[in-house]
């Protein structure tokens, strides 16, 4: 399916999700924020988000204008940059600690979460690496390099600690290696080796508590299961049509992190199953558009573009799925935002950049530029035809 310019469906979907997200961010923060912190108005989060959105549009447009070739050249520097930023988090005065985790970089007037950028950089890097001249899917070397890079980032994530990003990056990297045709043997051995590591990590008491809470949240509804139970209650009380926009009661401190990680629960409560499943469908649709872009480029033999498009689609889809899984109790609780909808600048910025890249890749190569002249001629022809029928009065 060739596009005249770029994939308008993809852009529409992204804009729909983002607009919807803005509305939900306002709904989730307007009521309680001023009550909790006197110095903050009900529009505090909303206006912050609008600012991030402007920056994100700029980033999306920049990414859209960037030629894939440039992107390919930027792959390694981008990876190094994201690594540097990630390490800066640990520099005293630069990093911001929230809870027990050091995940954010002080960036006046806001903060930035380098782990989001790492995902994007990793996808671009993998696309470049796997589409390279020397890439042989059956060679161990070609497997070892990306895995080493991945493990390095994962180790840093775990130091923060950020288990969610660790897992997401792992799934993303291995998925891309998988489609590049890497030997199943390598993947299986790696997974086998990962098992004891994961078990060791899970022995961290708070992670273990999350697992048990996930397995049986109602057992300890006031303790470790609280978040999940509250999410269930929010979704469940929404029913088919919801309690009405802005009428969520679960956002009154019952739902944890209602404007970020658990915003989808509030969507379900306020707008019901119909809207919630529409949001899920939009993400699925976005993924579909993404792999269609990838597929078209594979057929033209542009492997970098193919891997890149596939990787970026995967990146958005995996993040969305993990968030859905967590709020619906299909996966243990992890602090990951829902792309385009959750409040959080870094996530929106990175995902909009990804959409920008995908939109760029959706343009049918460079040979089919939009033919403005032709379209003008067409319009004139139609106008003449109308006049012939209705006369000058129109």
């Amino acid at each position, binding site marked *: 399916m060739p596009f005249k310019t770029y994939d308008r469906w993809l852009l529409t979907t992204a804009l729909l999700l983002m607009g919807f997200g803005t509305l939900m961010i306002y709904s989730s923060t307007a009521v309680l924020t001023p009550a909790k912190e006197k110095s903050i108005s009900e529009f505090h989060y909303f206006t912050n988000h609008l600012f991030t959105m402007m920056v994100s549009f700029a980033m999306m447009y920049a990414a859209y204008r960037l030629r894939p070739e440039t992107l390919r050249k930027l792959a390694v520097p981008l990876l190094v940059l994201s690594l540097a930023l990630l390490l800066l988090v640990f520099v005293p005065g630069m990093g911001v600690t929230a809870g027990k985790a050091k995940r954010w970089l002080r960036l006046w007037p806001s903060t930035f979460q380098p782990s989001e950028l790492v995902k994007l950089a990793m996808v671009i890097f993998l696309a470049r690496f796997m589409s390279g001249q020397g890439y042989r899917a059956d060679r161990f070397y070609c497997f070892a390099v990306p895995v080493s890079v991945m493990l390095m980032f994962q180790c840093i994530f775990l130091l923060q600690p950020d288990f969610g990003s660790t897992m997401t990056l792992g799934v993303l990297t291995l998925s891309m290696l998988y489609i590049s045709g890497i030997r199943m043997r390598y993947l299986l051995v790696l997974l086998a080796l990962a098992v004891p590591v994961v078990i060791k990590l899970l022995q961290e008491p708070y992670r273990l508590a999350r697992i048990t809470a996930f397995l049986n949240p109602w057992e300890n509804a006031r303790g470790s299961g609280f978040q999940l139970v509250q999410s269930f209650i929010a979704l469940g009380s929404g029913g088919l049509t919801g309690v009405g926009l802005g009428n969520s009661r679960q956002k009154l401190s019952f739902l944890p992190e209602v404007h970020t990680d658990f915003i989808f629960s509030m969507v379900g409560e306020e707008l019901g*199953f119909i809207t919630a499943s529409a949001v899920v469908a939009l993400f699925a649709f976005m993924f579909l558009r993404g792999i269609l872009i990838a597929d078209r480029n594979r057929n033209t033999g542009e492997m970098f573009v193919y891997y890149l498009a596939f990787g970026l689609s995967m990146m958005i889809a995996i993040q969305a799925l993990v968030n859905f899984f967590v709020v619906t109790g299909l996966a243990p609780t992890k602090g990951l935002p829902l792309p385009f909808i959750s409040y959080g600048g870094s996530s929106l910025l990175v995902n909009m950049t990804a959409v920008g890249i995908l939109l760029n890749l959706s343009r049918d190569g460079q040979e089919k530029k939009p033919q403005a002249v032709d379209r003008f001629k067409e319009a004139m022809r139609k106008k003449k035809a109308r006049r012939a029928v209705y006369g000058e009065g129109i």
Partner: protein
Amino acid sequence: MNKRAVILSTIIAFGFVLVLVRLADIMLLNHERLSRAARLQQVVSRDIEVARGTIYDRRGRELAVNVETESLYCEPKNMDAPGKAAAMISKLTAIEHKTLLKTFSSGRGFTWIRRKLDPDVAGHIKRLELEGIGFKTELQRFYPEGRLMSHVVGLVGIDNQPLEAVELRYDDTLRKPGGMVMVLRDASGMQISEGMDTQARGNSIVLTVDSGLQYIVEEELQEAMLKWNASNAVAVMMNPYTGEILAMSNRPTYDPNSPAESSSQMRRNGAVADLYEPGSTFKLVMAAAAIEAGAVRPEDRFDCSKGSIKVGKWTIKDSHRQGVLSFKEVVQKSSNVGTIMIGLELGRNKMVRQAENFGFGEKTGIDLPGEAKGWITRESPSEVATASLSIGYGVAVTPLQVLRAYSAIANGGVLVTPHVVSEIRTPEGYPMIELKPDAGKRAVSAKTAAALKEILMAVTEQDGTAFEAAVDGNRVAGKTGTAVMRDGNSGGYSKGKYASSFVGFVPAEDPKMALIVVIYDPKGGYYGGLVAAPVFKNIAEKSLAYLNVPRDDSVEQNILTVRAEGSRQ
């Protein structure tokens, strides 16, 4: 696409489908159950706080109203300078600095510091603009008349919970229960929506009490208390035809505006709750029983010249030695000897029955809480018991019961139901319910009542026991009582402690009021005629003037006033 990409895409697609299925499971299949769980944690039910209705006296004067007051609270977790705040508030409210500091440094949430603060102090604290200190407007019950009528109106506690008298008895009316409101709360339990309906007001109550008469009664009773250094005192004024309580006063009394300073002893309404042995005022029962039975006529004579009578192993004396007395004089001079002679002749049963007809031994049915019903001794009908009963011992009565019995004589023989509330009005002031207790049963025949009235009028004549009760210008019918008080602990009689009383009605021929005065343990005199009768007289004179009751000898009595029809418009 290669095979692996298809597999991976399918897995992702499957993931989305899984999410949809899971959403349908949670949101549609478990909707009912989870909604219930949601309501359970989000909504709490609270009683609607209704502003209490106003209490008026019979002339429409406000006796209990609501005023908005400020209550001071703190939220220690939001406080930035607990030390400074504690010092300043301590200075203004006179709460101990240490106590405040402890509260302020506790890091807790909402905590009251002082409820219903003085407006001046509240203003001062407000101007300090301290962090973590706040005010909440609350309705406070205010009694404009203060101590006046406190035993009738009653009072409420700090949370406006009813504690005494009309406030307690008519709480449902005054609060007009608004039911429950569902109140939203957040996870920390903070209330989100306001539960109080500020428009909700209870019904108003109009009392039968006249604060003008009440003032007269209170003043005279207070004077008697001081004069006789009495332990307690009670005075009740009632309309003898309707049972409307016109005034009801007790000593000691209390100020309902400062509930903390009153003890339960002070709040006790002795007129309905305190039992005493009436003594001579109870001779009415003997007299009524005798006349009803046709056993005596007023002219019948009894020889009381011995001055004492021996009953069983007891000898009962008269306070003053009398000669041969007519029946009327026995009552007039309150001769114990004569009374016992008649009583023994009548027999115990007739007197007990008459006492019960007068309503002794049962509650009067007054609409005030805590009424005692009293008792008549049920011991073996020995001569001693019969003799005791005839002169008012061996029974326990409330002042109100005695007043009711005498009211029956005043109104021609019917027992009325005393009551203090005449009307319930809507919050807007429209009449809603008029409370008119049914006319009670007959205590004595009209003829007997007339005869007894004649005898009781003699009591306040020059040679009666209560000339002191005679009112200038109007005839008074009544009876003195002087009874030895029982010792609260031993149950025996205590030497030198008397309950002096006078009960009667005025004007005797056309009674406007029945009044009882009981003074407990007066010092320096104890005869009812000496201690209680003057109080009766003073109250009666002032009250008759207040009510514009003409003198019996007034010339206007004989002038027929005719209002011209036309002049009405």
